[in-house]
């Protein structure tokens, strides 16, 4: 069987059962449970945003009736229970009975074309919304039909006061409503696919006739296991970034109408929005907007929380995928993190001696006495003994001591150096050992002594920039290696060295395979950023701990980008959308606000940079402009 980690997400979408076998409920709990509990998920417009690969379509698919139906059919399968529970907490199920009739309507095809028509804006938006409504109705009813429900037994329940308008959507009967929706769709499709737009006055019925099912339908009644149930229709408009910005804005406005009773979501990629919004510059949504919309960002703004949530989701997802691979499941290897060794092989005696020699050179250069060196080394050892995140290791102790000595040298008044004095000179500020010194030491060991740095499940998650697809791409390589070991009769456990090597190899491949628009400019920029970050990371005193992995641009300069330099803004838009860069706006340091452009996980990993966040090089827009120049 092919490694399921290597399969593309879309390959799972076609069949509900295989989709359910690999999908994790964690994002539901992270992003959707709260609004569902607050009652703001289905009663108003919900806008869901995320980068490509963040799992928007997967989520849309999970809320579709087809999937829910498959889940209920296989309700006794153990792995489905957590999904059923998550869907219950999100209000899709109640007592294992569907409450929501979800339909995903992709917007990637014809809708944007309406905006090219030489018609008044009102006509164009009317054509757009009408086609959306017709297709939503079709998808609701077709799913019911495909699940075995006879459409004549399906009844449309109108909202109070809209009974008279039932006629315009085909009546109450499910089959008649489907037929009407199909007629509308066909008429509109004929217009949109015409090579040249028909004259406005020839459009006729498709535009002039009333057809507003979203204003009419409240619930849909259907037979369910010997009784009748009512389900709330939900239209999920996926890939809304395909629309023209004005069209998107009009659609958003239209969907915020309070009269609508159907649930409606817009799913959109970050680069769908105007550059300012993608680049994270939108201020707080106003109160009025909050009342009519629910905003769900599939990458949390609180970064520590994001990492924790992502690790949890990635763990569940990878375990599900692992369960699909026979050599692992047969041996009861169901936890992906168990495949990743965390113990780092010590340097050989010879190499350790060389490293110690280098530390001695540093000691002499900075003028520290043997007792001062011992004191610093003792501090390092003490810190490592207390630390739960780091394992004490002779190489790590030596590398951290070297950094401490360099810092000692920086803080000791050099003019007072007197080779004839017996007294030890003291630094003007005591040297403390913390996690940043240890991270710096680990980065130095990676670059200079090839000691593995990207080791363990958390590192793998952090290297993915909180992006599910990227995580699978990186993890897939590790799984293939572990599987090979199993097949050869060895243990599945991957050594730290192998993990580090494979993750870095895969990261380089990911970067080499970039082919998104402006990838050349993005590549040039990230290469330059990475080069400068590596140089700074390898400074002897590790002034930024593990080093920088970002450029900081003054916030005010960054905010002016879309107006002053739209070309650059567009390049950055793609860089962010494809996880080459991650933005952190309004980062406060040295009494100034910065926008951090962090290198995405694979870029950081390929270049041997820290995965810890916060370290950055101070730059400005001129550096960005120079950085995107393709030689």
């Amino acid at each position, binding site marked *: 069987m092919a490694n399921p980690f290597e399969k593309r997400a879309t390959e799972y979408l076609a069949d509900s059962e295989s989709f359910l076998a690999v999908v994790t409920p964690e994002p539901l709990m992270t992003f959707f449970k709260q609004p569902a509990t607050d009652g703001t998920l289905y009663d108003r417009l919900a806008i869901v945003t995320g980068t490509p690969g963040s799992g928007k379509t997967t989520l849309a698919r999970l809320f579709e009736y087809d999937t829910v139906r498959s889940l209920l059919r296989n309700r006794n399968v153990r792995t489905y229970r957590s999904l059923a529970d998550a869907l219950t907490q999100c209000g899709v199920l109640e007592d294992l009975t569907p409450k929501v009739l979800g339909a995903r309507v992709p917007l*990637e*095809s014809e809708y944007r074309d309406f*905006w*090219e028509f030489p018609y008044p804006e009102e006509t164009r938006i009317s054509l757009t919304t009408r086609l959306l409504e017709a297709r939503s109705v079709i998808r609701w009813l*077709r799913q019911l039909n495909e699940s075995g429900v006879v459409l004549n037994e399906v009844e449309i329940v109108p909202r109070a006061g809209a009974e008279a308008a039932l006629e315009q959507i085909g009546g109450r009967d499910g089959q008649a409503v489907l037929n009407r*929706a199909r007629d509308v*769709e066909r008429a509109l499709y004929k217009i949109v696919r015409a*090579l040249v737009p028909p004259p406005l006055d020839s459009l006729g019925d498709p535009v002039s006739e009333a057809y507003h099912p979203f204003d009419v339908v409240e619930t849909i009644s259907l037979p369910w296991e010997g009784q009748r149930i009512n389900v709330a229709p939900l239209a999920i408009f996926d890939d809304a970034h*395909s629309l023209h910005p004005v069209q998107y804005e009009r659609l958003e406005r239209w969907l915020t109408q309070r009269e609508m009773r159907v649930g409606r979501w817009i799913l959109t990629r970050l680069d769908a929005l105007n550059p300012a919004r993608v680049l994270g510059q939108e201020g707080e949504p106003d109160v009025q907007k909050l009342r009519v919309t629910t905003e769900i960002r599939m990458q949390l703004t609180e970064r520590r929380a994001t990492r924790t949530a992502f690790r949890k989701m990635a763990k569940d997802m990878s375990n599900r995928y692992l369960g699909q691979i026979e050599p692992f499941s047969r041996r009861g290897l169901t936890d992906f993190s168990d495949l990743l060794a965390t113990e780092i092989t010590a340097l050989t005696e010879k190499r350790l001696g060389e490293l110690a020699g280098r530390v001695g050179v540093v000691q002499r250069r900075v003028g520290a006495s043997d007792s001062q060196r011992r004191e610093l080394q003792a501090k390092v050892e003490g810190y490592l003994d207390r630390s739960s995140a780091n394992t004490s290791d002779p190489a790590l102790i030596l590398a951290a001591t070297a950094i401490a000595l360099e810092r000692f040298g920086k803080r000791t008044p050099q003019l007072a150096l007197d080779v004839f004095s017996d007294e030890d000179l003291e630094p003007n500020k005591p040297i403390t050992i913390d996690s940043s010194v240890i991270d710096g030491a680990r980065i130095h060991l990676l670059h200079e002594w090839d000691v593995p740095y990207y080791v363990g499940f958390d590192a793998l998650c952090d290297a993915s920039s909180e992006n599910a697809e990227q995580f699978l791409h990186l993890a897939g390589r590790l799984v293939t290696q572990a599987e090979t070991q199993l097949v050869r009769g060895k243990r599945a456990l991957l050594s730290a060295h192998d993990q580090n090597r494979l993750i870095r190899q895969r990261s380089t491949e990911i970067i080499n395979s970039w082919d998104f*628009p402006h990838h050349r400019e993005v590549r040039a920029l990230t290469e330059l950023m990475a080069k400068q970050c590596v140089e700074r990371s390898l400074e002897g005193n590790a002034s930024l701990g593990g080093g920088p992995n970002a450029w900081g641009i003054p916030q005010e300069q960054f905010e002016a980008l879309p107006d002053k330099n739209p070309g650059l803004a567009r390049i950055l838009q793609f860089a962010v959308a494809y996880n080459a860069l991650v933005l952190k706006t309004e980062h406060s340091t040295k009494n100034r606000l910065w926008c951090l452009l962090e290198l995405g996980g694979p870029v950081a990993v390929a270049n041997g940079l820290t995965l810890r966040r916060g370290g950055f090089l101070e730059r400005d827009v001129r550096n960005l402009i120079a950085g995107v120049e393709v030689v």
Partner: protein
Amino acid sequence: MREEGRYSECVMHRSDDVSLFFASYFQGRNVLVVGGAGFDPRACNAVQHLHRSGAQVQLHLIREHRPGPKDALTAAAEKNLELFQELASTFQVTDVEIFGNDGAIVGGRRAARAVSELDLRSYDDVIVDISALSIGTSFPIVRLLVEEFARNVQPKNLHITVTHDPGIDARITRTAGDRPGWVHGFSGALGVDRDQNPARLWMPQLASGAQQEIRRIYDFVQPDDTCPILPFPARDPRLADDLALEYREELLSAWEVDVRNIVYADEDDPLDVYRTILRIDDLRKPVFEGSGGSATIVSPTSSKLTALGALMASMERDLPVAYLEAENYELEVPAATPPTTSQIATSPNLVHLWLEGEAYASGRPALRREV
């Protein structure tokens, strides 16, 4: 039973035959050429041939604009334009933005509208030279003219020319965009709901270095079956094998292609591609008749010459065409100086197809239009 194709007996000339045909047919005729005003070194080749034939050539050029063109390409396009000016008695250029300001692909629609506004009544022949036009603009233009012809509006005769040169193709690299879609006017009937969805057969024309592009198209099409088209016979007899090797992961794993589903078509013969697509489409029809029917989807991701075959099949059967628009182009070495009026490039292979008009008796199979 297989249907006879509308273009099965299409008149086609290649290489030296083109010059002979042009000299005998076009002399003294009033000809409109719709072509591309781009950087492609082949852009002027067909018009040069026409000029020598003694035809009254009037030019309507479509200048495709993409964001951030390289200076070298702009300069090459300007040189081509100068040469066009020397060759044609009347000369008009329409600028067409391929991408809207939001990045949406709008070029095909805008090009079709520009051509629809032309008054074609005064011409004996209209030639669409697709050598320097992208798939996204050339396909809608040709289809528009073919449909006009079918409605007996205009023109009297419709021809297509393309200059084929794998060497130049190899020098041009394109960066594909990230939004796969249907070529404007080529979405078939896939956009309307039916009781049973048709089984989707996807026929991509495999080309070297286009893996990512073709994968994206695959994700967009989501076919039930895939029949990749490989070039054979080809100038390089190993090309089909090399491509199969390059795409082995897709063929064996992602697309799960049965080796019997690999289709071969002559690299130099658009009619072979055309007939191949029609044959496969015909074979599937009876098989899927009772279960929602079959929809054949093509992706002309290889050379322009083979794309022509896909174009003819798609127009005739109303087949959807899935593609990825090019975000930008690069020419590996500086564009060669275009030959002067008197010189005609000899190496590129000019191909001429007489698509509609006086050469054909009435009663050819009609063009289908499902919606």
